[in-house]
């Protein structure tokens, strides 16, 4: 029997949570159709999140999941531009005759959805992003040209997190948007997901014992995010997240990490998300969102 899951019309951080909630309710037999026909908006976090959901479903069922693509030509245009459709075709069954659409309008893509499987991939991402980052950060976000370097450093650290801690591959994507209603400014959104062991799994062997019964996804996230705890004994490790937080804070941005059933975030004044969430629908690996607003 085929189960149908409706992909939320707004496929962002919250949309991903809703999608995961539906996925966790699925019976283990049969097949799944993800109906994205009514998607009206998707950010990089939503896109890489959808790929991760597809990958999980692909591992769970005999038949690959079917993806019904959005009806909106505008949405299809930027999904194509982000190379989401190419990546999705590797995971989902996609109805025949639906190919990448011709992009419309100027590109706001800073980094197309990219598979991160090795440190070599991180090098390629940084190499690819450097010049574009300078242009987009200065033209759209009023940052200085020199900010392209700390932006690349932050991106390098967040991508390495996939390889070093998740012990699994993942995806990253970056795009700029005009958050006219929400913030009245342009933003750059970075989405990074992996399907690895998650923060709890990564830290468990070294740190779970001293937390006793309190050891769960949120505790693991707090240990890593707030205190720089890592599974490595090397004191030089565990600094990547600290430096990412510091840089995002300096740029007035938001960074959140979801792992397992919990999420932790540095929330700027323009956002009303909680700083911690627990009891979310369980999902493997970790999912990182970074939002950087334009300077005013």
């Amino acid at each position, binding site marked *: 029997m085929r189960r149908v899951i409706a992909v939320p019309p707004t496929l962002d951080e919250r949309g991903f949570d809703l999608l995961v909630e539906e996925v966790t309710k699925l019976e283990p037999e049969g097949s799944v159709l993800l109906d994205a026909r009514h998607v009206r908006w998707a950010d990089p976090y939503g896109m890489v999140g959808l790929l991760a959901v597809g990958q999980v479903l692909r591992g769970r069922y005999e038949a690959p999941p079917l993806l019904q693509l959005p009806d909106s030509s505008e949405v299809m245009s930027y999904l194509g531009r982000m190379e989401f459709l190419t990546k999705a075709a590797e995971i989902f069954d996609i109805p025949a005759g639906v190919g990448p659409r011709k992009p419309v309008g100027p590109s706001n893509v800073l980094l197309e959805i990219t598979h991160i499987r090795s*440190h070599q991939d*991180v*090098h390629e991402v*940084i*190499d690819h992003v*450097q010049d574009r980052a300078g242009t987009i950060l200065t033209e759209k976000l009023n940052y200085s040209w*020199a900010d392209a*370097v*700390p932006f*690349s*450093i932050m991106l*390098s*650290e967040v991508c*390495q997190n996939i390889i*070093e801690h998740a012990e699994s591959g993942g995806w990253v994507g970056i795009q700029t948007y005009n958050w006219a209603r929400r913030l009245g400014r342009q933003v750059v959104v970075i989405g990074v997901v992996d399907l690895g062991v998650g923060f709890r799994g990564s830290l468990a062997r070294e740190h779970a014992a001293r937390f006793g019964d309190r050891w769960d996804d949120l505790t693991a996230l707090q240990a890593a995010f707030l205190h720089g705890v890592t599974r490595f004994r090397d*004191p*030089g*490790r565990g*600094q*990547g997240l600290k*430096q990412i937080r510091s840089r995002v804070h300096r740029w007035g941005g938001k960074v959140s990490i979801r792992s397992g059933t919990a999420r932790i975030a540095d929330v700027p004044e323009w956002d009303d998300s909680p700083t911690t969430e627990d009891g979310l629908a369980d999902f493997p690996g970790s999912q990182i969102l970074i939002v950087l607003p334009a300077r005013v």
Partner: protein
Amino acid sequence: MRARQTSALAIDLTRLNGRTVASFYSDLVTRPTGRAVRLGVEQQLAELSADQGPCLSILDFSQVRVMDYSCADEIVAKLLLGYSDRKGPSEVYFLARGLQDHHLESVEAVLERHGLLLAAEDAGGRSGLLGPATSDERYCWEVLIRHGRIARPELVPKSGLAEDVILPTLHRFLASRVVVSLPDDVICPVTKLNGG
């Protein structure tokens, strides 16, 4: 007593990175890259210092576009940590050159993390002390830079600092290899070793 000679080994990190990891990256990112660069530096230093005594290793970052924290930790911090307590033929001093503002953020972060000091020289030849240091230590460093080579007993009157401040400061500088102890109780910041 014969003055100790310090051999200078200029290591262009981009070139080394290119040779040991991949020739087309000028970006020092990821731990494996940093590790490979450091191993290359260590190998060169081992070959050089095996028969020439103490040496000065100039780490030239001028052609490096991006250096992330992981790479800075693997190259800068681990190099300094690896040589900080060694004596004899593998006695090595490090001097950073060509560090730009965007490198400094990563370098300072890892020095802070490990409590390390690193001597640096900017494009104009000005000496700097990177890493966590007290105001007395920074002042003492400035005095040392001003004088270049100075006899240890002269440091108290020249700096105006008390001996109980000078002694631990010099001890830390020597242990961190940012100053060199020369014959006749003379000390010299590594940035001034070549008469700069």
